[in-house]
């Protein structure tokens, strides 16, 4: 029984990690008053380049760097549109998602042939943490994971510190609430938002790289499979708080893992009901833990100075 619990948790953490990374990035972006629905696209681009660079260089670390860099580039495009030119954030995000899906497909076929190849990229191997892995139940679940999972865990407090304990974080939160006040305080509104999008974009890069070079070790067209949208929901569900986001992502991950365990166990219930499980659970929990944390007041609104 304990073993099942441990394996559930291990699996849950593994499934939660990309969601967590993307959600943390989106928290930073949304805190600055920008809504980025292009998480899916940014992750996909990062997943592709991480896989490709890891494959040709043989180094997952270089792959990770490439993944983050490519996500940064797509974040920069998004920022140029939505912050620089003040284009509509939702359509830009939607356009970028389609563009990213197409682009990665084009590149995949260009590089690996029209009919593709089963790519096996070098990956982040499992890196047990000495001593800690011996802890009962959570030890094996939490501390026999790959380096990116540890990085994601580290990023929870780091993101929280960034938002609540640094000057940049203060400015980002302020700009998401009342850009006019930030402007009046003599701070560069657009540059701050640009920075937030870039920082958040790099998190998406990690999330995408995790998918391709830490989890599946390959790249498949559309492999993000809707995770970007789940991450968006997690951000709102968690009320824009990093630790809460971690909890929600874990809830979602464990719920997903649970349905695979149920299926593997051979329960004779149509599997579609298992696949529904994480989503139903999310709604129920969201309704149960009712909280009304307000969204950043200036979210999805472009800022321009009049006069």
């Amino acid at each position, binding site marked *: 029984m304990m073993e099942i619990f441990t394996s559930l948790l291990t699996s849950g953490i593994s499934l939660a990690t990309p969601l967590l990374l993307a959600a943390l990035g989106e928290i930073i972006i949304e805190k600055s008053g920008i809504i980025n629905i292009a998480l899916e696209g940014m992750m996909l681009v990062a997943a592709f380049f991480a896989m490709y660079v890891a494959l040709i260089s043989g180094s997952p670390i270089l792959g990770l760097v490439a993944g983050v860099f490519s996500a940064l580039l797509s974040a920069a495009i998004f920022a140029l549109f939505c912050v620089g030119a003040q284009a*509509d954030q939702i*359509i830009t995000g939607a356009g970028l998602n389609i563009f990213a899906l197409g682009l990665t497909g084009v590149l995949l076929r260009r590089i690996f042939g029209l009919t593709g190849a089963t790519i096996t990229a070098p990956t982040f191997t499992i890196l047990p943490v000495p001593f800690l892995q011996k802890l009962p139940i959570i030890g094996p679940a939490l501390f026999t994971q790959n380096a990116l999972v540890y990085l994601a865990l580290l990023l929870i407090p780091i993101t929280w510190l960034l938002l609540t304990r640094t000057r940049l974080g203060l400015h980002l939160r302020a700009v998401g609430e009342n850009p006019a006040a930030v402007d009046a305080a003599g701070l560069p509104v657009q540059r701050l938002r640009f920075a937030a999008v870039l920082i958040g974009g790099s998190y998406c890069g990690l999330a995408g790289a995790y998918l391709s070079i830490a989890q599946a070790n390959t790249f498949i067209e559309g492999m993000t499979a809707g995770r970007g949208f789940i991450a968006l*929901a997690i951000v709102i569900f968690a009320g824009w708080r990093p630790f809460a986001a971690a909890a929600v992502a874990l809830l979602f991950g464990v719920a997903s893992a649970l349905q695979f365990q149920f299926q593997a166990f051979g329960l004779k219930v149509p599997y579609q*009901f298992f696949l529904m499980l994480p989503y139903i659970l999310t709604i129920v929990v969201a309704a149960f833990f009712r909280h009304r944390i307000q969204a950043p007041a200036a979210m999805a609104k472009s800022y321009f100075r009049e006069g």
Partner: protein
Amino acid sequence: MRRPTEILRQMALWFLPAMLAFVSASGFGALLVSGFGYSPLLVFSTLWEGAFGDAYRFSETLLKTVPLVFTGLAVALSFRTGIWNIGAEGQFLAGALIVTVFGVKAANLFAPIFFLLTTIDIFLSGALLGILAGWLREKHGVSEVISTIMLNMIVLQFLGYAVHGPLQEAARTYPQSDRLAEVARLSQLWPGTRLHSGVIIAVLLAIVLWLVLFRLPFGFRLRVIGQNPHAARFAGINVSRHIIAAFALSGGLAAIGGAIEVAGVTGRLYENISPGYGFTGIAVAMLGRLHPLGLLPAAFLFGALESGARALQRNLGLSSVLAEVIQGMTILFVVLFETRWFRELLNKRLNVK
């Protein structure tokens, strides 16, 4: 009297952004396809031909426009009311499911009763999904963005279950429903094509929604709530009730779209009945400036791009992903040249001269 230069300037302002958006999208597209060894001119002519080459191609473009109109209307109505309904996809599927239930299981009913019941239930299926999200938001404080995304996934899985289980064809082989009875099918509009009467329903509903939003007191109140819910409450409007109503209407519209897709095009229910019409509907609605009539051309553009993209694959062997890149780029350029930044830039440039 206006000076000729002023008239020229006005014309330029009118025409330039559109031209530039198109030229840049095609420019980048051309660059891209020529990188893959295709002649850009050929690509564009194929795109055009694929979308409007002959009556049949044109009908196919219209056919692709129809579901987008419905999901676009659903999104436009909800966004206008300040509701971020991302659930058009799930509501679309629900409508598809319900029309199948009736079309397969209840087709022997007396026709008028059948139509009445079916239409009501299709609408209700989407409306109830919307109301559920609305209830969760108003009574439990669950953001509709979360609940509708989750409901999409749930309905999708439920539909999968349905075509494997209770709704599976009598032969029990494939995960698909039986064919809808003839009475439940929409009539063909144009012999030799697949164009069905759904296209008329789409246009009619767009007009109706326009009337509701901009001519009826009810729609006026919805728009007030969308702009300033606080003032709406202070003006004596029952905000909660209107919001639930908007959720219901929005869901119902999307559901009708799903039903029409099954009744008009496929004739049976499949798992992958929608390639994401609900999500594309968001882009359609935004491009149409959340205006019921404005989104008609927007949906048509998406339909044409989709149709044209098929021709690119068929006739030139351009992969579907390349077509996606061009689609994504078109959307991006259209929004870019719609921005305040660009308009100001243009104004400045034209004023200097």
